[in-house]
């Protein structure tokens, strides 16, 4: 007998690259299923060793790719991308920090992310295999017209159900499913906005602890953007960052030439 139910085959590795390595900084976010998909694209399209991700470069590329994310996708999806940006920045910061002696040598801050990426990649490949199986199955059509037949009168079928069974079913009804917790919409925030804020604050004070910024906004994305803004300003020489001791307060100091932006 001929069989549809052949084993599903995996796509060839080449076919599994969803997007070619076109200009990798111009990515249309809608093409990606989410932050993991985008991240995998950046890694695979540049032949980067997934077990040794250059987190600085990738973070920069990722943030560049999601610039203006709030305009191109829904707020909920934007939040998903921004959350990943926050994770990347955190990993990057952890890699920069000096290793504490009490931490194990193999505690690579990237390992959890790598595990998630490989796991996601597995299911992404599976989705490809399923898609091929779906297309093959769709070549077969069932009988289009099935003669209507008088349906047996259900009302006349004897019903086997005791009151005990009925009450038992009522008792076993679980409590209603959990409601999705309401997520406060994330107000989109940009690095530029934070840069302006640093300038304004540093007009009045010569130096500000980074935590002072963190305290004012509870959401992670504000912290991330503030941090990125501080890094950007340090790069441009507008501010100096210093830390008096490891794991101590990170100070943002007014730079020497801070006349304008």
């Amino acid at each position, binding site marked *: 007998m001929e069989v549809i139910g052949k084993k599903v085959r995996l796509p060839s590795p080449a076919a599994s690259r969803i997007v070619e390595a076109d200009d990798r900084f111009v990515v249309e976010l809608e093409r990606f299923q989410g932050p993991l998909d985008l991240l995998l694209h950046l890694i695979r399209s540049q032949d980067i060793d997934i077990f040794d991700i250059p987190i600085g470069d990738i973070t920069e590329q990722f943030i560049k790719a999601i610039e203006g994310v709030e305009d191109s996708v829904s707020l909920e999806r934007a939040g998903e991308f921004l959350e990943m940006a926050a994770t990347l920045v955190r990993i990057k910061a952890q890699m920069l920090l000096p290793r504490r002696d009490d931490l194990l040598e193999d505690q690579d801050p990237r390992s959890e992310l790598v595990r998630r990426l490989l796991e996601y990649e597995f299911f992404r490949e599976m989705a490809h295999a399923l898609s091929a199986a779906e297309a093959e199955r769709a070549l077969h059509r069932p009988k289009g017209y099935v003669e209507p037949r008088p349906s*047996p009168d259900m009302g006349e079928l004897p019903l086997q159900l005791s009151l005990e069974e009925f009450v038992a079913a*009522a008792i076993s009804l679980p409590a209603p499913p959990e409601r999705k917790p309401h997520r406060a919409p994330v107000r989109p925030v940009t690095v530029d906005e934070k840069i302006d804020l640093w300038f304004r604050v540093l007009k009045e004070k010569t130096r500000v602890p980074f935590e002072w910024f963190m305290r004012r906004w509870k959401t992670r994305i504000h912290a991330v953007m503030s941090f990125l803004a501080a890094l950007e300003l340090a790069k441009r020489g507008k501010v100096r960052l210093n830390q008096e001791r490891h794991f101590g307060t990170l100070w943002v100091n007014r730079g020497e030439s801070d006349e304008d932006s």
Partner: protein
Amino acid sequence: MNPTRIVEAILLASETPLAPKEIARASTDLSTKDVEDAISELAREYEADDRAFQIYPLGDGYQILTRPEYAPYLERFDSITRTNKLSRAALETLAIIAYRQPVGRLQIEELRGVSAAGVLRNLQERGLIDIVGRAEGLGRPLLYGTNEKFLDHFGLRSLEDLPQPQELQIALRAEE
């Protein structure tokens, strides 16, 4: 490709009877005459092979249908495959309706976390529930309740005789 086989595939897969002229559109190599010949050829084959189906003319089209002598088997098959027992989904839905009536579809779906449309139809066909009204508000959704047949089945005189065990979740308990 053999035109007779193309016609066979189309006749099987079509939801409506198709006229030879329409079938001929499947391929530029196919004339209406070819299709008519193919249909005659298929009818002869099905007859000679004693198939359980045949090609029947309907309006100006044709369709593959089972032969009438198999109708009793189909009927028996239908009535046996429908069971005398309620599915788990139907049973739970019936419980929600019995304890919360009058109740709308959305409330039932919220309590069970799944779509209730099919189950509600099934319970109505079995005659255990009725539409008892409409709610206020958007779209004025239908409200369901149990009926006489439901009470009769369990030998209850009224809904007040429905047991109210302690273990019933709050949403189903009678309001004090």
